[in-house]
């Protein structure tokens, strides 16, 4: 069971920092994605003369799907949110599915990796909100609709960040551990149904993580819009 531990073991030390398998896999995914992006960038054109090739169509399809999903939740801030949420989605799909490669463990199986991503989402909510509305307005939305709800607002923000991290970690780790246990108990080809479940769960959990991150950030961005609309409605009426 020492390969599927709940805590990752460090592989080597780089000064005061210990590099675990999770970090190495994340670096490999980053290098792979960067390489693909750099290679694809040479081959696609902004305004193709003839009909676009299959690669460009596929890429545009992916980006358009992500953009439509973001526009469904936050139609006025789509271009602002597209880099962050799109990167989150693409990275999570690749990272979750990388657990299927024999010998590779998905980095999201480690609680530190998912906690880092959840912390990113938590801080992004504040960043986007403060950048869109200013510090005072953004902090004031914690006191709306009533200052009594302030502790509940704070508790709910902290809890949903923790829940985001534990949901992704629990799903990925339990799928890998279940596959390992079935392999130990039942023999060679028995984990194949669990691996099919792993594929589905990896995609669903990546979608859910990105969608929840989108909803939280859009909630931070739009926190003042309802009050402004009400004010405009009152002054117009």
């Amino acid at each position: 069971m020492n390969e599927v531990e709940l805590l990752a073991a460090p592989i080597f030390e780089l000064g005061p920092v210990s590099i675990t398998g999770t970090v190495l896999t994340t670096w490999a995914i980053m290098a792979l994605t960067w390489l693909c992006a750099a290679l694809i960038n040479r081959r696609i054109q902004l305004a193709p003369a003839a009909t676009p090739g299959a690669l460009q169509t596929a890429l545009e399809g992916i980006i358009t799907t992500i953009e439509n999903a973001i526009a469904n939740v936050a139609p006025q801030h789509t271009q602002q949110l597209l880099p962050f949420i799109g990167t989150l989605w693409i990275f999570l799909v690749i990272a979750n599915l990388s657990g299927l490669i024999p010998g590779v463990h998905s980095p999201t199986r480690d609680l530190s990796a998912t906690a880092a991503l959840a912390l990113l989402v938590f801080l992004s909510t504040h960043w986007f909100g403060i950048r869109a509305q200013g510090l005072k307005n953004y902090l004031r939305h914690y006191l709306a609709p009533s200052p009594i709800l302030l502790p509940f607002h704070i508790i709910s923000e902290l809890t949903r960040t923790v829940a985001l991290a534990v949901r992704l970690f629990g799903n990925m780790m339990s799928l890998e551990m279940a596959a390992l246990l079935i392999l130990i108990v039942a023999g060679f080809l028995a984990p194949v149904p669990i691996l099919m479940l792993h594929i589905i769960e990896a995609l669903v959990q990546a979608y859910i993580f990105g969608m929840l991150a989108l909803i939280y950030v859009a909630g931070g961005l739009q926190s003042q819009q309802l009050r402004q609309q009400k004010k405009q409605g009152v002054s117009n009426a």
Partner: protein
Amino acid sequence: MPDLSSFTLASTVAAVLGISLGVMFPALAMGWAIKSALEALSRQPEAERAITRTLFIGLAMIESLAIYVLVIVLIVLFRNPLLEYLVK
């Protein structure tokens, strides 16, 4: 060590009971959620995208409760923090 064997027995029984109860209630909740989503869909088929999206998000939230139970049970079974106090 009789202390260790009774501790192992108790933790195994607790783990099995915990996982079975901890999965039943989210399963019931998911059934209700899917039932309401299907009723809403049958009443208004043109809202399919919104209903499907909300359904999946709700199902993932409910499923994460079952995942919390699974994580605790796996910790109790495989990496029990109290074991090192008894083995000492």
